[in-house]
């Protein structure tokens, strides 16, 4: 049996990030090509409870680093643990999911090890070389890339592979991983949290009603708010809207905003520029409301209503 593919598991104070399960599925696709197994790396004592979930999703072994310096998440601390694990466990490759945290900790580890890091892959093909497909432009383009490294370090684009439970009910044998961390890693640990909302978020809402430049003003969003409330959803917007100061940037959908994946995205007065589309395309269904039947959003949507959003939306809300 050759060396294992080590998958870094993301969690927040012991709560598993679903993206980690995608990383395990991705790790298995690499391991199968290498004839190797997948092993999980849990960082922080609070993560101990996640071992069974890792095994159920295909990890053959679970390593837990519960160093007392790891009181909370910290990019430099996690990067140092991963770099140390590379030395202690000699894995064949290291993988994680391409979330904010996943990409950040792998970049820190790669910098520490002076090795390349390939972010947001959708596919890895292992022959004489490692070749992978990764996303550029936030998902608008694919890049075929070749990797030359003594230890491949890769993240999988979020939502690119599906999590799969392969060994339900199996339980884990957790192996402690003792590492000595340099003092400085604690300088970038999370120190505090501010809780803003417990409710629906743009990233998780089942319905998003999005508005673009066509809404015309901050006040214009009232008709979108009403429809979103009726459908149990939230309001999103395009960059033209945040640039005009009509909505906060936290409402922006797209390459430099939030990626949404609702059951239905209702895109109103949005032309459908590529940078907006990449943030919206994971929606199960898209309904465009636009005065212009040739708008990119209309052409790419599953459904469309041609017309002025100020006529169309109130008529829907009032049933």
């Amino acid at each position, binding site marked *: 049996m050759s060396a294992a593919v080590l998958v870094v598991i993301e969690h927040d104070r012991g709560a598993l990030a679903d993206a980690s399960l995608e990383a395990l599925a991705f790790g298995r696709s690499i391991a199968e090509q290498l004839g190797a197994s997948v092993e999980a790396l849990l960082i922080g004592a609070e993560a101990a409870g996640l071992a069974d979930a890792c095994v159920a999703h295909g990890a053959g072994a679970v390593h837990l680093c519960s160093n007392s310096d790891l009181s909370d998440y910290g*990019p*430099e601390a996690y990067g140092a643990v991963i770099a140390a694990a590379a030395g202690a466990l000699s894995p064949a490759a290291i993988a994680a999911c391409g979330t904010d945290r996943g*990409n*950040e900790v792998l*970049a*820190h580890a790669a*910098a520490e090890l002076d090795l390349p890091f*390939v972010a*947001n892959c959708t596919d890895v093909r292992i022959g004489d070389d490692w070749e992978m*497909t990764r996303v*550029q*432009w936030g*998902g*608008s*383009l*694919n*890049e*075929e*890339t070749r990797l*030359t490294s003594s230890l491949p370090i890769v*993240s999988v684009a979020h939502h690119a592979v599906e999590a799969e439970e392969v060994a339900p009910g199996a339980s884990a044998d957790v192996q402690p991983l003792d590492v000595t961390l340099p003092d400085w890693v604690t*300088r*970038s640990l*999370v120190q*505090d*949290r*501010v*809780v*803003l909302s417990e409710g629906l978020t743009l990233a998780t809402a089942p*319905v998003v009603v999005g508005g673009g430049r066509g809404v015309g003003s901050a006040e214009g969003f009232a008709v979108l708010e009403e429809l979103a*409330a009726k*459908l*149990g959803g939230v309001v999103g917007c395009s960059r033209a809207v*945040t640039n005009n100061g009509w909505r906060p*940037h936290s409402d*922006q959908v797209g390459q*430099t*905003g939030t990626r949404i994946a609702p*059951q*239905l995205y209702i895109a109103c007065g949005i032309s459908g*520029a590529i940078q907006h589309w990449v943030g919206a395309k994971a929606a199960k269904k898209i*309904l*465009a409301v636009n005065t212009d039947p040739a708008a990119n959003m*209309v052409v*790419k*949507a*599953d*459904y*469309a*209503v*041609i*017309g*002025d959003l100020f*006529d*169309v939306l109130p*008529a*829907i*809300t*009032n*049933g």
Partner: protein
Amino acid sequence: MRVLVCVKRVPAPGAKINITEDGQAVDATNLGHTMSPHEECALELAVQLVEAHGGESHVLTLGEAAADEQCRWAASIGVNKATLVDVGTQGWDPQRTATALTHAVRSIEAADGAFDVIIFGNESADTGGFQVGIRVARALERPMVNAIKGVDIVDDGAVLEARRETDAGMEVFRLPMPCAIGVKEGITWPRYPTMRGRLASKKLVVEQQTSDAAQGGQTMVRLNRPEEKVSETVILGHGADAAPAVVELLKELGLWTEGAAS
């Protein structure tokens, strides 16, 4: 306070992104150029920090000579100095870019003094490697956190408090200065250049550098456009008259609750 911002010149595509025939680059014929919105916000943050605390801001870019345009844009909104590492039109891999930028930072700091804060974008708009800033910070042995959406200078200027969005709110980091951060769009609201800014940008002296950094382990082979799901758009109707068909669709999708709200 001395603040450095790293920005990357990229094409500004429209409704879709075209690729050159050899698959090696985005076809920028007839396209303008820009930088990531994250980096526009980073420049604005640098100018605001210097307005609030005094000192000097500096923009650093690695790319083709034409990236002079992005340096002058930075100056037009108030950035004081600029350095361009001219590597021609060939894109550089993340390790090579980070090595060259680290070298450039060291040379600027040797001449003008150390930076208190180095600001990067969370990721570049085109290649999106999610790592150049982290590699530079690590090489300079400075703390670095990515995905930052809010900052304050606290403890009499000794600490940069950096906040990042999570599903439930914000998590807070307190980085001892000097430090580095990668920021996301929304952290600031970039200003437009004033007439005075435009004049200053014309007078800006862009310091030129070159680099002999070695290539890294990642080699781009070619670009492809992802396959698009082709969907026949179902037109549900025109104007308010389309409402019953939309309600029908919402019922079909299980998203319509009779009698709720309105």
